[in-house]
């Protein structure tokens, strides 16, 4: 039973988000999920990039790394690899994760890094005042797409499934109960878990009402272990909330642990001896 309350995870800083911003709902869900899991704040690290959503770590009373635009995933990987005892949650925006950070996402997925990645997807760049993001709709008008967005949006869930993420889900900021539950499942999942959290930007892309109308739940008979079906579901229109894909696979942490077990213990003196000139180091690459 949990001894911590959601409020225990609140920091002394008040969120600076606009009134109505979806990120409030995501943050509330995260507080609640952390309380449900009774996470030790001192052993929890929230890692983010840059953007409105990426300010989140400052509002949580845990350890946090507010990194650079697009870089939360590799930083989170370093945190987890260096200290596997920690619970590591990466958060950020759709621009952060799928524009400038797009190169890291497939690798986090295939490596099955033991990190939960929670993207507050508002289909826009909030912090820089409303430009189109990689998830903005085709033909959407925005300050840098005055003629309508000429690009088709990326589908982060489909991408995650293709790249090898082992847990892929969708939640919504306006549905905090379900989102709380999803976050808990994601954090408890072994390996890389990705949650696309629909989180409207009320200032620059107010989709709140239309999204509320559009969401449905993943059908109860959906088999989340079927990768092709999950892909199919990810491609379909409408927003199905819930777990699209889940796979049991050894995690990066486990694989590196295995390497540590495999490696013959040594020390620096032995290594130095390997270079001994009299004994003659191996040809080409001595020692």
């Amino acid at each position: 039973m949990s001894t911590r309350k959601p409020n225990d995870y609140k920091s002394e800083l008040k969120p600076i988000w606009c009134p109505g911003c979806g990120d409030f709902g995501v943050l509330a869900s995260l507080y609640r999920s952390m309380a449900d899991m009774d996470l030790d704040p001192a052993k929890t690290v929230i890692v983010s990039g840059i953007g409105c959503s990426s300010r989140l770590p400052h509002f949580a009373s845990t350890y946090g790394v507010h990194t650079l635009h697009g870089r939360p995933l590799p930083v989170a990987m370093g945190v987890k690899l260096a200290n596997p005892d920690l619970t590591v949650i990466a958060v950020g925006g759709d621009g952060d994760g799928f524009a400038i950070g797009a190169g890291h996402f497939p690798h986090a997925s295939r490596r099955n890094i033991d990190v939960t990645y929670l993207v507050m997807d508002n289909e826009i760049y909030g912090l820089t005042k409303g430009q189109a993001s990689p998830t903005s709709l085709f033909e959407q008008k925005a300050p840098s797409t005055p003629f309508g967005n000429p690009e088709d949006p990326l589908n982060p869930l489909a991408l995650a499934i293709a790249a090898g993420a082992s847990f892929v889900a969708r939640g919504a900021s306006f549905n905090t109960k379900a989102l709380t539950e999803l976050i808990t499942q994601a954090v408890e999942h072994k390996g890389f878990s990705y949650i696309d959290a629909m989180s409207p930007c009320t200032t620059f892309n107010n989709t709140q009402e239309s999204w509320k109308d559009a969401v449905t739940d993943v059908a109860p008979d959906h088999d989340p272990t079927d990768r092709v079906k999950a892909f199919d579901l990810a491609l379909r229109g409408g927003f199905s909330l819930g777990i699209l894909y889940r796979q049991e696979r050894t995690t990066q942490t486990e694989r590196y642990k295995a390497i540590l077990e495999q490696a013959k213990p040594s020390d620096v003196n032995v290594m130095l001896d390997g270079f001994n000139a009299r004994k003659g180091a191996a040809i080409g690459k001595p020692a």
Partner: protein
Amino acid sequence: MASIPAANGPARPRCPESSRGLPIRHPGDARPGCNLYGGTLSARNSVVVRLAGESGEGVISCGDILTQAAARGGYYTQTFRTFPAEIKGGPCMYQFRLSDEPIWSHGQDVDLLVCFNQEAWDLNWDSLGPEGVILYDSVEVTIPDEYLDRARPVRMDELAKEIGGSTRAKNMVAAGAITAVIDFDTTPIEELVLRRYAHKEGVADANIAALHAGAEESADLKGRYPLVPPVEVEEDRMLISGNQAIAVGAVAAGVNYFAGYPITPASDILEWLSVRLPQVGGLTIQCEDEIASLASVVGASYTGAKAMTATSGPGISLMNELIGYAGTAEIPVVIVDAQRGGPSTGLPTKTEQSDLNQALYGSHGEAPRVVIAPVSVEDCFYSIVDAFNYAEEFQVPVLLLTDQGLATRLEVIHRPDPEKLNIVQRKTSAGIAREDYKRYEYTESGVSPMGLPGEPNGMYVATGIEHDEYGHPGYTPEIHLGMQNKRLGKLEPIRETSRVATHGEAQPEDIAFIGFGSTFGPVREAVDRLAEQGLSVGAFYPRVLGPFPASRVEAFVANAKRIIVPEVNYTGQLARLIKAETNINELESVAKCDGLPFTAEAIIDLAAQEVAA
């Protein structure tokens, strides 16, 4: 009048010609000769051997094995290699110098030139010293008549085929021929061959047979170029490259986490540590690029790990944003830059010291960092320890600059004693009460205790946004100035305390050499030889270039008639740095931009002639 003549090159581009200080020779130039067949030269205590051929002919492994055998036999060695950026084909060269005494450079005048093919002769004949002799493949190479009296054909291809059915063992025939000429015992070579091919039956035998055949082939020249045999050979000698010294030094410093992306000439470090780090409980990971590498190093260090990456110029260019982040968030990281010829993809397998500016000034805004340049292979070991110590003590990114020459050359050094190293540990929040803890607290030293995950009282958010003492975002003038004072000010003590490599006079009256990194070896040799000529000469090599030890450099040159600043780049980066940071206004910048390291001889030439503006 400004006095950096090499600055930005001449006013107009000119046709390519050899670099300043390295005379160009042309075939047919009269050269003082010697006769390979005419009696034995007196034993020398240093010999310079150059092997040249096509990439794929085994030139590099022949050089490596001879160097290793020599080290095993008790000689000091220095090597220099150059090879094409392509995997197969293209000219490649391996030079090694052996001596019974410590040596500091790979030498300029070649005593024994070994040509595997015609191009090898065409490209390398002009490196021959006045008493230099030649071994060449009897089939592939034709030598001009005027060199014939000091050249000897060796049936490299032919014998290799006879013995092994292919030209594979050609390099062993060459090795054998060389051992005869320099009067070198083949036993250590045989031992190495046996060890190398322990698992491949037959191959070792063929190689050893080729070795003997080669030695037989030039048996009549035996001892033609004898080396003084080594006398006192200490047990603690190691043969090691710059990259390896960095890798094992990092282990000595306590590295726990290495992340990198392959790139020439830095990949050795990644590869070596991927074997070794797990053996001491650490992790090595190859990331998707240099940005991810440094990002994950930042993440690892955030948890308290000693974390590093290694790359070359192009990788550093990509890491700049994260270097600024680590500096601002005050997260220790160590970054090795094994410099290669630039700009851009440039000359991946050639040497250059042209990343100094980028190391000092890369990343937007004004981000703190420490920049270190080791001066020798041995110093690579101690410098990476310094790098970790600075990183951990000052919570700052540290860049360690080597170059292709230093990173890949093999040198005999004395075994460092890990017990004697001073290893600095990070100041942490342990023991501080939660309510008293401020991650970015203004302290006397500018360094604030770092909370490490797991520690209940140290919770904070690391950030690259400007922030107050708590790490909360804040953009007031007071916060910004206060934090820049903290982040940059904390490094000030290093100016006075950093290690410096010096040689010769502490305050020379004739010539003061200032340089950085790998040019120290040849300069050191040159200083000795110029001192023998009666000049008051000294060399001052700051190991830490940023923050720059300005007043110590000023003190060094206080009495000097001439200040010479040799460096392997185009614009004279160190010379400009000295001008920017000190009161020194008149100096001779000798920037050499040809992808090759300096030789002691070239430095001596510089001393002889004032550099024209």
